[in-house]
């Protein structure tokens, strides 16, 4: 069984917010709810600026699931973390626990009263029958059931954001790293593979686009 994952290649992300727009359009999410966002670190600092698109990362040991007081979360066979909006009480605990700020709450009343939580579904809908009216209204389209991958990654113009089976994604990413001619000096590589990370004396490869 495939284990669904997102990966965002910070060397390719150009902060166009196409993924954000694709997501909003595909699922018709309400105003104020953003299932995906692009964060730019070191904004404006030449040589240090990196952008990355982030949404629900569909954790194996999901903190949202662990703290939910009504147990409305479940993990599908594909490793996608989904939730049941009929059970959700809008307490906000998942939002406290999530490292990525994925859970979103539409305001349901005065003083910031939370409505039912909404988050990235990996375009896999919810517990309802696939692509029924109820499912689309609550969770947006179920592209996975149609054999398609998440809209954000499909729409990514630089193919920085990839979504799909983790094994396939890691093959693609590994190939990119090899084509870039770098990788031995990636952070943590020496720790992981016992290779000395002293390749910085070599000239940086030019004209090697991946």
């Amino acid at each position, binding site marked *: 069984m495939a284990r669904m994952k997102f990966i965002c290649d910070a060397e390719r992300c150009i902060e166009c917010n196409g993924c954000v727009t694709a997501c909003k359009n595909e699922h018709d999410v309400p105003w104020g709810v953003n299932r995906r966002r*692009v*964060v730019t670190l*070191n904004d404006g600092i030449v040589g240090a600026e990196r952008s990355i698109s982030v949404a629900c990362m569909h954790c194996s040991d999901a*903190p949202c699931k662990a703290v*939910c*007081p*009504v*147990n*409305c979360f479940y993990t599908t066979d594909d490793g996608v973390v989904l939730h049941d909006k009929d059970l959700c009480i809008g307490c906000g605990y998942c939002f406290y626990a999530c490292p990525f700020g994925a859970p979103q709450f539409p305001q349901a009343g005065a003083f910031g009263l939370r409505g039912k939580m909404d988050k990235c579904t990996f375009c896999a809908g919810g517990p309802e029958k696939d692509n029924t009216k109820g499912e689309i209204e609550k969770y947006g389209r179920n592209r996975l059931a149609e054999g398609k991958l998440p809209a954000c990654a499909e729409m990514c113009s630089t193919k920085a954001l990839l979504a799909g089976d983790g094994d396939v994604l890691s093959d693609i990413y590994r190939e990119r790293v090899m084509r870039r001619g770098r990788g031995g*000096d990636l952070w943590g590589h020496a720790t992981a593979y016992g290779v000395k990370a002293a390749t910085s004396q070599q000239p940086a490869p030019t004209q090697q686009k991946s």
Partner: protein
Amino acid sequence: MKRLFAQFAVALSAALFSFAVLAQQSTGPTLPPGELAKQQQQRTIDQPYNNQPVWSNARGATSGYTSIPGPETGVLIQDGGQTWRALKNGTVSVWGGWAIVAMMLLVGGFYAWKGTIQLKESPTGRMIERFTLMERMAHWSTAISFSILAISGLILAFGKNLLIPMFGFTVFSWLATIAKTLHNFIGPLFIVSCVITFVVFLRDNWPKAVDFKWIFSFGGLISGKHVPSERFNAGEKVWFWGGLMVLGIIVGASGLVLNFPNFGQTRATMQLANLIHLGGSILFMVGALGHIYMGTLGMAGAFQAMKTGKVDEAWAKEHHEIWYDDIKAGKIPAVRTKQIGAAQPVGGDD
């Protein structure tokens, strides 16, 4: 009870302290963000595609740029949530849950041992007004709102483990929705009731030297020896200051932080507020179990006093001797409610 209280307080403060320490350790990089950005600039030249300094900066409260509006949307990864999860699902829930169970057993055991404490002398039939209508209304609005908050809070905190196996997901979700709504709307009412109750009972709860004697003999509750006290004994005063005031402020303030998330408070603030709210409310419930026990099963005449406002002279003499003596000496009127239409006070000196 006091020892358990103390032990639990130590455990709770240890938990909160460790949270503070862990939160300190886990936030952010060891270098300031500006320094890491400079490092990355150099790294891009030395080792292209090596983004280690950027990702060192990705954790914690360092905010990047994002076009998405809202609080903390620029934060890529917040790792306080993991600490909060561990403490909430672990230490606080486990200790807190068992503290409540232990207190119930303690109260039950005490009842089995002592039973209801009866009056030693026979009632005189002459009644003294212990609580005015205003005082009783203040007390009961606090008591009723507290009970609703305690029960709904327990459903939300422990229902996942205790009630879902019994009722299933759908029924429990309805129950939790009702509990959450009640908790959010009764909460502010409880704070108002606490303030009114505080004002109404403040004068007679002022600590006096005689209270220490009561504390050291624990009110004669165990020895059965008589310890004189004022209108409120030291136990009631401890509950007034430690429960109503201190825990009221702790639980009330942390509750407001959680109840009104529309002031842009960060997740770290709400995580801390939630842990303080949990710890404080568990202490509150443990204290309330003792208070409710003494006010109902534990002591004959106590519930009647808060229900009707009146106590028998024999009860007053036995449980609040100094107060009784003051009434007998005419320092305090036996009936403080102004009698409408009565020519002269009823039930005064006789």
